[in-house]
C-alpha cells in the first residue's frame, strides 16, 4: 500500500521538478459492485474497478488537471499538462492549495464490503420482507451497491495521507398496485448492522398504505416529509451552501451570511462521520474533514469552502474541497424535540410525503422551484392518515420551506438514493407549514 503512496508522491515531486508551483496527486483504487433488480428478479450485476490518479497543478496561477491510470505515461501526461498551462490563463482567484501537515483520524472502512461478491441473498431477503408487509403480488425493484476505495493523497504543500472508504447501499421500491408504491433505503459505511430487510419492510408498509390512491387537490397544506424526502431537501440546501455555487448564483444563500434563513429550530451541518456512506478523513486538498454547522438555529453561519473560495470570502477552508467546487459530504439535520408520532398528531389537515424526485428551479437566487412527490402521498386529518393520494406537485420556494419548518423529529435516518436524495444525509421527519401543492389541469 505504501508503494502506491510513494508512487503518488513521486508524481508530485516530478511535477515540481518540471516547474509546477503547487501540485496535488490523488490515487484512488476503487472497487464497485452493483446488483440491479426489478419485477422481483435480478436484472444484472455489474462490477467496475478503477485505478486512477488525479493530478492538479498550478503554474503561475494557471490551474490545470489530468488523470493517469495505473501510473502509466505519467511523464507524457505531465508534459502535456505543462503545455496546456503555458497557453492557459491566469486565475487571479486561485488561492493555492491547503498548506501544512494534518493528522487524520484512522479510517473505519470495512474491508468485508469489498469481499461481498455475490450479494443476491440480501436482495432476496428484502423482497421477502416487502412481501410479508404488502402481499405476495408486489412488484419490486432497486439496487444493492457496494464501494471500497483506497485513496492516497500527496500535496506539494504538505498534506500526505491514506484513507479507505467503504459503503453499502440498498434501495427498494415496492408496488402493491400499478399506482401504489413505497420506497425505502438502507445505507451504511460498514456491514455492521446493515439490514436491507428493514428497507424492504418499510417500502412494503408504505406501498400497502398507498393502495387505491385518489387524485389530490391543489392547495396550501402543512406537510410531513419522511426522511427520504427530507434528504432530498437537505441535499438541495447543502449544495447551495457551497461557496462556488454562491458565487455563480446557483444559491438561495447569496449575501445572506449572518442572516436568518430558516426557522429557529433548524440546525444543519455537514459532517462525513464514520457512519456515512460518503465517509472520508480528508478532502481533495488533504485538509482534515470536520463538522461544519452552516445553519445554526436559523442563522446562516458559513459557506462550505476549499482554500481558494475561503480566501475570496476571507474565511478558512472548511475541508470541503473539490479543487474547483467545494461540496457537502454528508448533511445532518440537528435532532428535533418531538417524536415522529407527535409530529403527525400536530397536523390537523395536511399531507404526508414519503419521497420526491425531479426538483427544478425557476430562479436559484429567489428559490422558486417545484418537485414531484412520488410513492406514498397521504392526506392527514386530525393526526391520522385518511387517504392515499396521487398526482400532486410541490410548487413553492426553497427559502420559504426552510422558514416554515415547524417540527423536527427525534428519529433520524441515514439516507442516500440515486441523484435525488444526494448527497447522503442524516434526515429526520419534518413538519413544514403552508406548503403550496399544485396539479395538472
Amino acid at each position, binding site marked *: 500500500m505504501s508503494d502506491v503512496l510513494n508512487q503518488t508522491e513521486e508524481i508530485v515531486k516530478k511535477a515540481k521538478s518540471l516547474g509546477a508551483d503547487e501540485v496535488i496527486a490523488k490515487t484512488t483504487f476503487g472497487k464497485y459492485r452493483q446488483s440491479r433488480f426489478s419485477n422481483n428478479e435480478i436484472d444484472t450485476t455489474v462490477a467496475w474497478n478503477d485505478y486512477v490518479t488525479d493530478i492538479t497543478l498550478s503554474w503561475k496561477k494557471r490551474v490545470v488537471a489530468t488523470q493517469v491510470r495505473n501510473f502509466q505515461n505519467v511523464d507524457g501526461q505531465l508534459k502535456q499538462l505543462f503545455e496546456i498551462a503555458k497557453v492557459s490563463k491566469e486565475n487571479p482567484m486561485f488561492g493555492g492549495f491547503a498548506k501544512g501537515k494534518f493528522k487524520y483520524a484512522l479510517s473505519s472502512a470495512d474491508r468485508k464490503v469489498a469481499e461481498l461478491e455475490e450479494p443476491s441473498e440480501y436482495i432476496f431477503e428484502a423482497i421477502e420482507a416487502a412481501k410479508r408487509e404488502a402481499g405476495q403480488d408486489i412488484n419490486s425493484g432497486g439496487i444493492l451497491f457496494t464501494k471500497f476505495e483506497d485513496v492516497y493523497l500527496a500535496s506539494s504543500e504538505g498534506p500526505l495521507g491514506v484513507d479507505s472508504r467503504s459503503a453499502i447501499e440498498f434501495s427498494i421500491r415496492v408496488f402493491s398496485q400499478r399506482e401504489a408504491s413505497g420506497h425505502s433505503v438502507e445505507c451504511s459505511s460498514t456491514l455492521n448492522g446493515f439490514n436491507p430487510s428493514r428497507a424492504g419492510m418499510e417500502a412494503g408498509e408504505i406501498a400497502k398504505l398507498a393502495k387505491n390512491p385518489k387524485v389530490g387537490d391543489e392547495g396550501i397544506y402543512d406537510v410531513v416529509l419522511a426522511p427520504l424526502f427530507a434528504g432530498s431537501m437537505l441535499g438541495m440546501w447543502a449544495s447551495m451552501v457551497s461557496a462556488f455555487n454562491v458565487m455563480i448564483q446557483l444559491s438561495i444563500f447569496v449575501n445572506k451570511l449572518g442572516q436568518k434563513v430558516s426557522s429557529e429550530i433548524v440546525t444543519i451541518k455537514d459532517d462525513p462521520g464514520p457512519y456515512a456512506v460518503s465517509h472520508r478523513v480528508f478532502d481533495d486538498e488533504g485538509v482534515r474533514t470536520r463538522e461544519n454547522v452552516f445553519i445554526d438555529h436559523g442563522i446562516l453561519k458559513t459557506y462550505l469552502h476549499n482554500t481558494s473560495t475561503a480566501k475570496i470570502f476571507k474565511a478558512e477552508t472548511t475541508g470541503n474541497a473539490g479543487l474547483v467546487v467545494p461540496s457537502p459530504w454528508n448533511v445532518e439535520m440537528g435532532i428535533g424535540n418531538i417524536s415522529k408520532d407527535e409530529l403527525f398528531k400536530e397536523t390537523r389537515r395536511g399531507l404526508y410525503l414519503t419521497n420526491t424526485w425531479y426538483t427544478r428551479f425557476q430562479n436559484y437566487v429567489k428559490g422558486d422551484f417545484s418537485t414531484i412527490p412520488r410513492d406514498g402521498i397521504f392526506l392527514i386529518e386530525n393526526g391520522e392518515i385518511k387517504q392515499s393520494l396521487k398526482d400532486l406537485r410541490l410548487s413553492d420556494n426553497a427559502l420559504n420551506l426552510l422558514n416554515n419548518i415547524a417540527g423536527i423529529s427525534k428519529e433520524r435516518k441515514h439516507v442516500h438514493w440515486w441523484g435525488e436524495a444526494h448527497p447522503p444525509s442524516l434526515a429526520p421527519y419534518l413538519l413544514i407549514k403552508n406548503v403550496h401543492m399544485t396539479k395538472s*389541469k
Partner: protein
Amino acid sequence: MEKDIVDYALEYARGKDIEYAEVRAQNQKLEQLMLKNGILEAFLSSVNSGFCVRILAEGGIGFASTNKWTKDEAKAVVDLAYRFAKAARRKDKILFAEEKAVETTWKVEQKKKIEDVDSETKIKQFLDVDKALTSHTVNVPARVFECDIHLTEKYFANTEGSRISSFVPKIAAFGFITVVEQGKSEQAFEQFGYSGGWEAFDGWQITEKLIHDANVLKEVITKAKAVKPGPMDLVCGSEVTGIAAHESCGHPMEADRILGREMSQAGRSFIYKGGSFWMGTRIGSDVVTIVDDPTVEHSYGYYKYDDEGIKARRRHLYKNGIINEFLHNRETAAKLGTRSNASSRAVNYDREAIVRMANTFVLPGDMTEEELIEDVKNGVYMVSFMEWNIDDKRFNQRYVGREAYLIENGELKHPVARPVIETTTLKFWSAVDAVSKDLKFDAATCGKGDPMQGIPVYTGGPSIRLRDVYVK
C-alpha cells in the same frame, strides 16, 4: 486501443457455458474547461481507456469492467461477469432478440479537426463570449461557461461475430447567466452540442444567443406582466416543443421503463400492457408525429451503430397521434416479441448499455410560426423554459416559460412573467392543432440509469399550437 486484449477476453468467455458475450472497449480523450465570471477556473485534459465484458448465461446478465489492459485482468473480468450472470438465479430467463453479425468501421467527419485547434484558441473563444456579455448594456453579474470535448474511439465485439470500430468526436458547451436589474434577478441556462469538429463553435452562435437571453431577462424583469390564469391557446416555440417531446414521448416509450427495469429510479411508464395506453392507442391529435432519430448528421445524439452493434434508424414513436413504436434494445425486444431498433447506449465502457433516446423531435408541418400566432385570439407564446419536470410515469408535466409573450388577436404583446403550463401528456398532445414547418434542435443531456448516465441528445421540433389549455 489494444484489440488483441478484447479478442482474447471474448475467446476466453466463449470457453464458458454461456448464451452470449460481448466486449466493448473504449478509448476516450477528454478536454474540459470552465470559466467563472471571466476567469478560467481550470483546464482538464485526460485519457480514459478500458473495456467491459457482458455475459448472458443461464438467463442472467453479468457485467464487469476494468481500465487495466492486461490478459490477466481480461480473464478476471470475464470470470466475474460469468459468476454474476449465474448468481442472478432468474426464473424468467433473459433472452436477446436475434440480430445478424456486423463487421464495419464508421466515424464522424470533422471539418475543422478538434485535435488541430490548440487549447489557447479554445479558451480565447469562450473568453470572447464572456467579454461580449460584460460589455453589453445589460448587467450580467454571474456567468459560467463550460466546454466539454470527448474524442471517443470504440471497438465492439461479440460472440455472434460482430466487430465494429468507430470514432466519434463530440463537443458540448454550457452557459448559465444571471441578469440583475432594478435589484431583481432572472436566470437562463443554455446548452450546445455537436458530433463533429470545432466548426461547431461558429455554428452555435453562443454570443448572439446569450446576449439575446440577457436582453430577454432584462425585459422579463422590467416589463413582464403575470398572465391571467385560465384556459387559453398556447404556442410553444421549438425549445418547449422539444422538451415536451423528450419528456412525455421519448421517455415513456422506452421499453425497459415500460417493462419495469427502471422502476426504482427513473420510474415506469403510463404506457403498459393491460392499461389505458398501449401500442395503437391515441395519445395526441393527428398532426402530432414524434420521432427519435440517431441518424441526424452531426447531431449531439448521433450514432450509426448502437452499443449492442445494431444499425441505427429513425423510430416513429407517436405517429399521427397514435402510440406506434417503442425504443428497444435486444433484451426488451425479445421480451415484447420484436427486433431491436438500436436504442442501446452507454456513456462509458464501465457502464451497462441501456435503452436511451438519441434525437427526439416533432416532425414539422406546413405552416409558418406567424400563421400559428395569427389565429390566436387570447393566448401565450412560450419561446423557452427554465423550470420543468414530469412525474415518473411520464404523465403529469410542468413547463415554466422564460421568454414568453401575450398573444392578443393574433399579435404579440408584452412579455409574460413565468407562465406555467401544468398538464397531462394526453391533454398536451391532444390539444395540438397546428405545427409549423421550421424544425430546430437543442442539445441536452438526458439522465437515466443507476449509476446515472447523462447521455447526449437533441430535443427539438417546430413551433406547435395548443388550443384551450390551462395556463397560469
